[in-house]
């Protein structure tokens, strides 16, 4: 619970304020460089579901209460932000990779897991939006692509240095989910 609280506390100001829209040539919409994703992906790889919940709570509060989205958009986006890091964790677990990213294999798993997770999340969010009539079909692929690019970029840029520098310390914690014995 403490991990969830700290993750939520760290991610909430980032979810409120730390978004940069990057125009992508050829796409009519800009890509959102979603900085909190870097943090909650890392917290999920270290602490499992508790870390993912913290990111989910932060983005749900930020999108809903403060940004004024409708309930449907708000919950859908928040749920997507819960699914994405859990997909990354699942890939790491299946591949038996180490979040400290010391070996080439671990780095390769990270390089694959992040875009896969971002794509799953982008597909979830925009397909639900499409099914509920929030967006129209031509915008579906633009939304998925911009979400995929923005989320992946942010997780790689923000998350990679955090994993490489802090995992060594976090490994000593009993809450680190990869501990053996």
């Amino acid at each position, binding site marked *: 619970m403490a991990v969830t609280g700290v993750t939520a506390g760290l991610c909430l100001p980032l979810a409120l304020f*730390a978004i940069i829209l990057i125009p992508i040539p050829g796409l009519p919409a800009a890509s959102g460089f979603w900085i909190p994703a870097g943090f909650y992906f890392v917290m999920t790889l270290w602490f499992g579901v508790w870390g993912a919940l913290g990111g989910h709570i932060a983005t749900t509060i930020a999108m809903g209460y403060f940004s004024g989205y409708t309930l449907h958009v708000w919950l859908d986006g928040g749920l997507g932000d819960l699914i994405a890091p859990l997909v990354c964790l699942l890939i790491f677990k299946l591949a038996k990779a180490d979040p400290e990213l010391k070996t080439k294999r671990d780095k390769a798993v990270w390089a694959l897991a992040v875009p896969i997770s971002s794509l799953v999340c982008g597909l979830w969010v925009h397909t639900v939006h499409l099914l509920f009539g929030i967006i129209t079909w031509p915008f579906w692929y633009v939304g998925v692509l911009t979400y995929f690019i923005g989320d992946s970029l942010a997780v790689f840029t923000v998350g990679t240095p955090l994993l490489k520098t802090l995992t060594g310390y976090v490994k*000593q914690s009993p809450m680190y989910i990869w501990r053996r014995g």
Partner: protein
Amino acid sequence: MTYALLFVLTFFALTAVTVLLDFVHHRIGRKYYAKMVEESRALLYVHVFKLLAEVALLWLIVAFIGQMWMGWIKF
């Protein structure tokens, strides 16, 4: 450059310098910190979450400058 912008940028510069000094501090004293962290779990959590908060501060500064460039924040 407006007064408000100068004030904010100065604050950010000082924050960034403080955070970078803390990183250098930990880098230099790494082996001593590693020993202390092994002995005290509370210190481990404070250390990790403090570093995360500092990284979050740096990214907020980047986001602020990015949003000025985007036109969301104007002075």
